[in-house]
């Protein structure tokens, strides 16, 4: 009897180990393709705290450069952004972040107010799989799941990705237990230039009111920040598309005024920031490229320094050492990407 | 008994019904043989074979069959 139990336990361990290994193998690695999927998990490798945390969708992780904020203002910041991050995902990321640190400022990009329902399974995976297991993760999963998804597959992603057996590559083996950093403090760098031409005007909508559930989560964000003594800043990044309607702008402005929150719509500030949509966007206006992001960050850094209790931490340890290293990586990445882009352009023109 | 054996032989000429006692278990008689057999028996012996009598134990050997017929006649 004893022997049987031991054997059973042994084989359960072997099976469990094999499942763990397979799980690691089958998880998409998001290294050479869809690097957005690797963003959320990178936060856990941060060694020092941040004064500013950005939360939101591609309009934050493509448009702000924490490295510039450090170099020019000594502001320590991190972007917890991910692709089509929905507002409940943002809220729970905020809650989770507060478990690790209490920043001075939380910056939330309000574009996701337009989505009142779970959108797509693919984005859910990109945004949620990277989170460490926590109460917040489970709540975010529950709030985000589309109808065909199963909760269990977020606890055991192998149940979702098992059908990748036909498409496993060397990359899946190489990155079994570690990942390369794809971002610079959550910023996904892009140096390509594609001018914005013919930006389509917004189509009229039947209803411009944001969904009640979105308001609810925005309220919870504001409450949460208040509770922790964090300044919540609402922003709308200067992306020309998806279209930002005036009716939406009004609602957010009213809300910010009512709750006493600062709200910056950078779409209206592009001239002051010096953003030129002929040179500062990599995909014709959806997202800024590195040059646009640095311009935007410069402007926002000035605003932060003037309006928020952020500190210039240059020269302070351990920040100085950590950020010097980050800057080096940033500069190297910039150089490499620019070289690649130039090569591509020259190849294209010859 | 002789009459019964001749009925059986007519259905399956190649089987030794006097000794075989696994007619059902070895699938020598299938369900179609069984109902043919019952029809012949009820005719020949003027007994009514009820459906509940159609169980393997009654059809495994000629002897068992014979006993069943006697019992049915007895009632």
């Amino acid at each position, binding site marked *: 009897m004893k022997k049987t139990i031991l054997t059973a336990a042994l084989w359960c361990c072997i099976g469990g180990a094999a499942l763990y290994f397979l799980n690691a193998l089958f998880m998409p690695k998001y290294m050479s393709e869809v690097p957005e999927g690797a963003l959320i998990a990178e936060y856990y490798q941060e060694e020092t705290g941040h004064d500013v945390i950005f939360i939101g969708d591609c309009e934050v992780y493509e448009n702000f450069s924490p490295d510039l904020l450090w170099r020019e203002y000594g502001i320590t910041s991190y972007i917890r952004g991910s692709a089509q991050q929905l507002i409940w995902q943002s809220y729970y990321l905020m809650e989770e972040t507060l478990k690790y640190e209490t920043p001075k400022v939380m910056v939330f990009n309000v574009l996701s107010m337009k989505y009142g329902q779970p959108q797509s399974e693919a984005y859910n995976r990109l945004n949620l799989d990277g989170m460490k297991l926590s109460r917040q993760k489970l709540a975010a999963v529950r709030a985000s799941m589309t109808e*065909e998804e199963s909760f269990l597959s977020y606890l055991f992603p192998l149940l979702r990705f098992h059908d990748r057996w*036909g498409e496993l590559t060397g990359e899946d083996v190489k990155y079994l237990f570690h990942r390369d950093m794809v971002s610079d403090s959550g910023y996904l760098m892009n140096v390509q230039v594609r001018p914005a031409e013919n930006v389509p005007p917004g189509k009229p909508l039947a209803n411009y009111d944001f969904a009640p559930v979105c308001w609810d989560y925005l309220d919870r964000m504001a409450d949460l920040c208040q509770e922790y003594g964090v300044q919540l800043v609402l922003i709308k990044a200067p992306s020309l598309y998806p279209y930002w309607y005036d009716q939406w702008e009004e609602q957010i402005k009213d809300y910010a005024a009512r709750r006493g929150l600062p709200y910056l719509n950078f779409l209206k500030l592009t001239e002051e920031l010096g953003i030129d949509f002929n040179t500062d966007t990599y995909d014709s206006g959806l997202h800024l490229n590195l040059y646009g992001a640095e311009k935007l960050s410069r402007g926002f850094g000035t605003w932060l320094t003037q309006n928020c209790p952020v500190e210039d931490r240059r020269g302070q340890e351990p920040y100085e050492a950590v950020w010097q290293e980050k800057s080096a990586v940033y500069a190297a990445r910039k150089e490499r990407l620019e070289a690649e882009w130039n090569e591509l352009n020259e190849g294209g023109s010859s | 008994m002789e009459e019964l054996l001749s009925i059986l032989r007519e259905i399956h000429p190649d089987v030794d019904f006097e000794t075989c006692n696994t007619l059902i278990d070895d699938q020598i008689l299938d369900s179609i043989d069984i109902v043919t057999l019952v*029809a012949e028996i009820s005719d020949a012996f003027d007994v009514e074979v009820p*459906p509940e009598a159609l*169980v393997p134990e009654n059809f495994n050997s000629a002897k068992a069959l014979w006993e069943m017929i006697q019992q049915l006649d007895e009632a």
Partner: protein
Amino acid sequence: MSFASTQFLAFFGVLFLLYYTLPRRFQWKLLLVGSLFFYSFAGWWCLIYIGVTTVTTWFTARRMAALAREQDAWLKEHRAELSKEERKTRKAQDKRVRFRWLLGCLLLNFGILAVVKYTNFVLSNISGVLALFGGGTLPIFSLVLPMGISFYTFQAMGYLIDVYWGKCPAEGSLGKFALFVTFFPQLIQGPISRFGDLSPTLYEEHPWNGRQIAMGGERILWGLAKKLIVADRLAIPLRTLVADPEQYSGVYVLAVIFLYAVQLYADFTGGIDITIGAAQMLGVQVTENFIRPFFSKNVAEYWRRWHITMGTWFRDYLFYPMSVSKPILKLHQRCRNRFGRFGKHVSVHTCSLILWFVTGIWHGASWNFIVWGMLNGIVIIISQELEPLYDKFHARFPRLRGSRGWDLVQILRTFWLMGAIRVLDVYRDVPLTFRQLGTVVTSLRPQALWDGSFLELGIGAGDWLVAAVGAGAMLVCSLLGRREPVRQRLTREHPQLAWAGCTALVLLIVIFGVYGIGFDAAQFIYNQF
């Protein structure tokens, strides 16, 4: 709740733990509660149907048994006063009284089954006929079939008839009887158990039996693997092939015959493996439903090895009683006297055809199934009648009979013949099915087999390979397990290897199982029958 779902695994896990931790006298009660809980997942209203069947059957059986007791006692008391003839008359009278109870209960329960299952079929056919004469159409009712109704109705009615025949005692406890009808592993797709077979282990107290539990668990895994890796994978190209019959004719129809045979076998026997395995883990012994049916050498044999409990149910409760009934016996006499050898078979063949008609319509309310049933019957009758011809053939080639090569020819012939009849399941209607089968002869175009067309049916080369390896493994296990199941031998002779096999099976199911996003585990094929 599908067997191949995490819901079911969780449900079964909890039930299993409670089953062996609660005091043993509660075990059968727990099974009853669990079964009702399981069944309520199909919709609480289903409980009403199964409740009516359970209560009426239980009550009628007890009534018949009580009557029989009283009648026996009376006869015993008055035995001396009565002559043999009088006794016989009295007995016949008594039987008629009991028969009235039986008939009432049968009519009620088969009536329910008939109404929910066949109303719309009948109405639409009547509408069709009316339309020929320019009449209007009748309404179609939205009757939803209670889950497993064909199975539990048959199981309950089998019990009732057994009690009437005196083959098994009437169960006194309503709770115990309800468990017999609702026992969850076999509720949705059979096997159709007999009370005499199931009840002893169903109500017994079961101590922990590691060996039985391990065997049961292994069988569940094997069933899941068959279903999730092979059946559900092959279901994808099958769906494509059947959805567009115009495009997929000729050699594709042969592919449908072959793939559907493998898919249905893997799905159905996989489900039965889970049923029997789950019951075994609870100490309950459920009758086997399949014995390697694809190795059958003729159609009659195939039906003794495929869905066995259904075949024997129809044989014992329909075919036999019908064959020995007075009208059929009269028919037999008349035909035998008039037509000689063939005449002897007329009555049997009549019964066969009725049997197969009913079997067909039991499978589903459509002409496809009726034609399917009749074809089975006709093939069996023809092979019966051709037997003298076979004998002559074998007398000429005496070495053929029993040789391996000839066996193989017979096996393949039966496989393809049954397969061709079986595709009536999958095509939309009867004429289409025959048109499709016709294209095999008229426009085979076999090049589709090797020009890569099969890679465009919804699954890629890798999936075809997985399905082929899986089906191959099933075949090998079937062949190796003729005397004793492979699992059993492995567990006895190389226990560590058995453990390794189970662990590997779990991993294989997790990786190669067809489940998850974009795929809703296809319900077991037999659920709605």
